[in-house]
């Protein structure tokens, strides 16, 4: 088959994977090699759905032995099938990279013949790229559920990020919609990856401290170079692990999903959990009938996910068994705030950083600016605008120099209405993927590094 056809089929088949992040790795170029990774990640284009394109996102093959109900590539579907060779993937990656189309490769795959068979092909591909083609750009590699731990461990030495998609938020739903995929087949590669990341961190920190102390004591020779080898052995998945699950194909409420994500962050030290609004690609009685993908629900979950990772919220603070779903009209932080009016209003000039983060309309950046600026004088209401604070939401929850600017009493119903109205005008403009597909908060750093090195 012509390469163009393969590429079209296998990019089309990979498009439902949300992750396109190319951040978190600082892999450097080596002499005679090509490429490096930018810690902040770089977007190279934006497709017609407004999602960032950072990586050449493809499946190795869409020939699948499984028949998962929700999946476009299921064995029972009558669609064109194709498979790359490792050489084809390597050459495409390199040639796209040389033209600056991409930041690297995102390689996923359907399961052809068996999990191990497929995983071996993926391993061969990334090994070829790193060794033969001396490629030092970013690689995100999928671990195939059920594949041998040894293969995953080997592949992780060549990848910057690895991921296994949990697909559905519970064992029950997985059994129903993907009966051939076993929950444990998904969880165990996750464990393998997370264990190896942890081992690697220990190895690196201990080899560093050992070689330091040896250098100090003045001893040289073989033992030092041994440590050097340990230090220069390829890092295991330096940009960490992520996963993805489908929202709205199964009945679990937001609370359940958020608890699951929290578990991933805490137990597996995951970098990201991605949420993908279910888009009907197959018809089946076991699947819900949806007119439109639940994009707004997906958006609320991402917002809540942010609260877990950057705002020190816990899932149990945001939702509970009685209220297991987010108010679709209210962002999760505002929702939390109106449910906890006892904590408000807070005084901008004296409140702690942690509490500041909990004010709707104040983000990490504006909170930092407020704290810094406070040292240089009292902050008044006018100043807040300059700090990037969204006063439309924040004004109900703060006082500035003792004054309250909300204009209405702190009553739950009043605020709920006001915040929701303010929000509905935004609904249409929600940049659904923009904020999540590639974290560029740190892009200043890239630019700054550049200036540094110059």
């Amino acid at each position, binding site marked *: 088959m012509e390469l163009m056809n393969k590429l079209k089929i296998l990019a089309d088949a*990979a498009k439902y994977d949300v992750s396109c992040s190319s951040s978190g790795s600082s892999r450097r170029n080596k002499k005679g090699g090509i490429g490096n990774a930018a810690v902040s990640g770089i977007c190279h284009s934006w497709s017609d759905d407004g999602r960032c394109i950072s990586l050449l996102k493809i499946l190795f093959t869409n020939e699948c032995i499984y028949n998962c109900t929700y999946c476009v590539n299921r064995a029972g579907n009558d669609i064109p099938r194709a498979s790359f060779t490792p050489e084809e993937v390597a050459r495409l990656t390199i040639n796209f990279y040389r033209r*600056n189309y991409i930041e690297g490769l995102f390689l996923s795959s359907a399961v052809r013949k068996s999990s191990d068979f497929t995983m071996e092909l993926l391993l061969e591909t990334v090994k070829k790229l790193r060794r033969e083609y001396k490629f030092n750009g970013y690689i995100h590699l999928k671990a195939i559920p059920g594949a041998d731990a040894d293969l995953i461990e080997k592949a992780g030495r060549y990848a910057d990020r690895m991921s296994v998609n949990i697909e559905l938020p519970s064992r029950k739903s997985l059994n129903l919609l993907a009966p051939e995929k076993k929950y444990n087949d998904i969880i165990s590669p996750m464990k393998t990856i997370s264990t190896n990341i942890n081992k690697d961190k220990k190895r690196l920190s201990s080899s560093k401290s050992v070689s330091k102390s040896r250098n100090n004591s003045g001893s040289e020779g073989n033992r030092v170079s041994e440590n050097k080898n340990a230090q220069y052995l390829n890092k295991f998945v330096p940009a960490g692990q992520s996963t993805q699950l489908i929202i709205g194909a199964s009945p679990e409420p937001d609370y359940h999903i958020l608890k699951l994500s929290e578990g991933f962050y805490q137990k597996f030290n995951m970098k990201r959990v991605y949420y993908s609004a279910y888009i009907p690609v197959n018809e089946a009685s076991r699947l819900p009938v949806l007119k439109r993908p639940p994009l707004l629900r997906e958006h609320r979950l991402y917002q809540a996910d942010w609260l877990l990772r950057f705002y020190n919220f816990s899932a149990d603070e945001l939702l509970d068994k009685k209220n297991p779903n987010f108010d679709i009209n209210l962002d999760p932080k505002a929702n939390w705030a109106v449910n906890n009016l006892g904590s408000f209003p807070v005084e901008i000039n004296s409140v702690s950083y942690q509490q500041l983060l909990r004010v709707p309309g104040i983000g990490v950046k504006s909170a930092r600016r407020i704290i810094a*600026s406070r040292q*240089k004088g009292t902050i008044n209401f006018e100043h807040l605008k300059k700090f990037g604070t969204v006063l439309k939401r924040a004004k109900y929850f703060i006082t500035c120099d003792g004054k309250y600017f909300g204009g209405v009493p702190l009553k739950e119903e009043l605020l709920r209405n006001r915040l929701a109205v303010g929000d509905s005008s935004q609904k249409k403009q929600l940049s659904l993927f923009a904020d999540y597909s590639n974290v560029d908060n740190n892009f200043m750093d890239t630019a*700054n590094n550049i200036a540094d090195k110059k």
Partner: protein
Amino acid sequence: MIYYLYDGSFSGMLTAIYDAFYADDKPDKIIKEKDYQENLFAEKVNIETDKEKSDKVYQAIADKISSKSLRKVYYTYLSEKEDRGTVIYKYLKIGFKVGREIDKYYNNDSVLKLKKLSRKVSGEIHRMLGLLRFKKTAGDIYYASCEPDYNILSLLAPHFARRLADQNWIIHDISRKQAAVFNQKEWVITFFDDDNQIKITAEEKNYQKLWKGFFDSIAIKNRKNLKLQRQLMPERYWKHLIEKD
């Protein structure tokens, strides 16, 4: 109104700032000679670029404020905005008083103005690191054209020198008629106005097709959102994008 007029170079601007600090009658505006428009009430002072003076200011920013501030000052200069010299001068007046603490003055307008300008420039640098497209030419040279809002070639080049270290490449800023040229060892910025020699190969055409094919296939049709696409990738950059051309 006192106008200090400099030649447009970074060094010239820093010289003007040096002179301003030591002058009895402080300037109201520091601008590039070419940006100056005759004005009845203006008192012009022509500044002669002086390497020694500008080096002193450069070093003083790094030592007395911070290297981060120096970077912001340089980025602001690259914005090519008419009032950049004045903005930088006002910022430095505060900076030399308060030192590295200047970053905390979020509610000072001069500080804020400079921060905004430098952020715009660094934003475009980051954007361009992704949006630049190289074409392989017959002479085995990879050629990329662009028309950035700001004068950022000198900050794009180091990135690609590290990344595409085993290629010969040219990054051409069409509107400023200059290019960064790299020979696998070092890069220089030079006058460049001739892209007639740029002849692309059949192999190149093939990869462009493949990239377009990928670009079309990767979009989810049910989630089409062209407005968002334009917002994140402004149309003025499309001319040089293979996938949007």
